[in-house]
């Protein structure tokens, strides 16, 4: 065939492919849904990328059960999510940090919801594991002070005395320690540094923030980045969402007199032991927790990431309100939380916590 015939063949093929793909409309794909439901419409959320996998699972199952609804979630980051929520661009936001009083964030959010009220509840809890890459060392135990010194680059070799003290009988190589941290601003970093500065303030003197404060370590972008960096570097140690790092070793951290493992149950327990932060929870439906990371209770793993759901009790359109309410009800329901645990590795809200947050969602006026 000459070249113009080839051209024709390729163009035809391309058109066919696009045509088939575009015609495969999503409405016919809900194989398992019953489709019949009274909620319909489109709405969007935005925010924390830590919650992304969970949100995707929730959205997918909810859309299966309610084919008339289309939900989307932009993982632009907690800061972006809060900003978009305040500006009225999204119906709900996911945020790794509660709305703060800095720059009047909290009051601006309340204003967005007026005449309704602001809702802020925890919907996603995940343990932050300390992952490491040390061939030959199956189990690693660390106490908070050693942990802080490692990440502060004060302890630089794996065969250091402090580490050996926590791991009697374990053969530690003299490999250089490569501490891995997040290069992007992240809620995981903020929660980890909060733990370090609360539990060992004598060693960890840095300010708590989403930006990793120590220069000179190995920095990677995103949870996947940290996991890949630790996997690639012998002697590396990092901190990441436990569910994303199942193939690497997780260190056990000393809590009280025991060494605790980063399991979802242990992470959820922290929330049960912690009080609300009064300053950040002014309204009836705002529940911002001040995590008690110094807790020495049994079966608790104190390095956790708590992510919040931010919404309003009143929306401009009745359809939107009904749809958002139904969705959020699903999110906090036991089925929803089980699904998130299965798909995203988070810790399901405990029954006690669920009963605390349910009234907030029920307050959404969908009538």
């Amino acid at each position, binding site marked *: 065939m000459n070249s113009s015939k080839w*051209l024709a063949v390729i163009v035809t093929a391309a058109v066919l*492919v696009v045509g088939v793909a575009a015609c495969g409309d999503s409405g016919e794909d*809900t194989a398992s849904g019953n489709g019949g439901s009274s909620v319909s419409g489109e709405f969007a959320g935005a925010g924390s990328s830590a919650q992304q996998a969970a949100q995707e*699972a929730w959205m997918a199952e909810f859309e299966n059960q309610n084919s008339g609804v289309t939900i989307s979630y932009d993982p632009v980051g907690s800061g972006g999510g809060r900003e978009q929520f305040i500006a009225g661009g999204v119906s709900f936001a996911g945020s790794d940090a509660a709305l703060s009083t800095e720059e009047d964030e909290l009051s601006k959010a309340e204003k967005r919801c007026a005449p309704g009220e602001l809702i802020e509840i925890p919907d996603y809890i995940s343990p932050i594991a300390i992952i490491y890459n040390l061939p030959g060392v199956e189990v690693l135990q660390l106490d908070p002070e050693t942990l802080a010194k490692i990440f502060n680059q004060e302890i630089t070799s794996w065969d250091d005395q402090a580490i050996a003290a926590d791991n009697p009988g374990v053969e530690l190589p003299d490999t250089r320690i490569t501490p891995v941290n997040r290069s992007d601003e992240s809620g995981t970093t903020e929660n980890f540094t909060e733990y370090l500065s609360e539990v060992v303030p004598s060693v960890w003197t840095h300010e708590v923030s989403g930006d990793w404060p120590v220069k000179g370590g190995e920095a990677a972008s995103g949870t996947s980045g940290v996991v890949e960096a630790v996997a690639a570097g012998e002697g590396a140690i990092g901190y990441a969402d436990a*569910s994303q790092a199942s193939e690497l070793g997780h260190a056990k951290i000393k809590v009280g007199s025991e060494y605790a493992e980063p399991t979802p149950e242990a992470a959820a327990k922290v929330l049960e032991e912690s009080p609300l932060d009064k300053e950040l929870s002014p309204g009836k439906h705002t529940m911002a927790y001040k995590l008690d990371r110094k807790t020495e209770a049994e079966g608790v793993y104190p390095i956790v990431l708590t992510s919040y759901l931010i919404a309003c009790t009143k929306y401009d359109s009745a359809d939107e309100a009904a749809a958002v309410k139904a969705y959020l009800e699903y999110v906090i329901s036991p089925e929803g939380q089980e699904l998130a645990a299965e798909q995203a590795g988070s810790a399901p809200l405990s029954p006690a916590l669920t009963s605390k947050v349910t009234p907030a969602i029920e307050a959404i006026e969908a009538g």
Partner: protein
Amino acid sequence: MESATVTGSSRLLAGGLGWRRRALNITMTALIAAAFVIALIPLISLVYEVAKRGIPGLSLEFFTEDARGQIGEGGGAAHAIVGTLVITGVASVISVPIGIMAAIYLNEYGTGRLRRALTFFVDVMTGIPSIVAGLFAYALFELFLGPGIRLGVMGSVALSVLMIPIVIRAAEEVLKIVPDHLREASYALGTPKWKTITKVVLPTAFAGLVTGVMIAVARIVGETAPLLVTTGVVDSMNSDPFNGRMQNLAVYAYNEYRSPGVFKQAAYDKAWAAALTLIAIVMLLNIAARLVYRRYKTEIR
């Protein structure tokens, strides 16, 4: 130019074809060939890696289903494929006519300050970080349509900002080497300027223009950062650029990599498969362009 060639060559000839000239010739030829081989190594490595990791993720489901309602390991990327084609298509429709007309302006009409300003600033435009282009497009649409707006066409506008300077720069280079005597011959026959351009200059440069457009399209088709902030992320199919969020392959791949959830391998497979599909799309476009090139290429005598 020609006299320089004659002078240069004559000086060489005067020395005779000694072993030194022959050795230099062989060395430089070998170096040039070596450069090509070195350039091929990363290419082969890249294509191999993407193919190796992406093929496991390919399936009929990948091409025909979107991700709506799909949990865990299921779901496809049809919505992302359509999105990429639509967004890139609209961006090209915006950028190519404007870019080529501007290159025509620079080469055929331009004089004085407007020409100098445009030349200079087009160069500057090539350095705009992709995420800044995205933020700009978002701010532009937010001005008229309120906050939180997400549309397919916003992504196209952001990509156009990145595409236009490449189209202009490449088109300008190609138009510049169309020899003046072709134009002069045309004017001598009384053809008006615009007809000379459209019937003589453009056809002569056609093949090179197509290459330039292809470079520009290839540049933007894999862009992630600007699309993250403009087109949003969505699981369902949407082929209307003026209505609602639209997914595309680059953002899809990035998301699967960034938040794989518990079924990590399946998500990674899908990310690599999306990257493979992107490369395949550009390859197909390239093949089409090459065929056009072969057919319409005119040599300058």
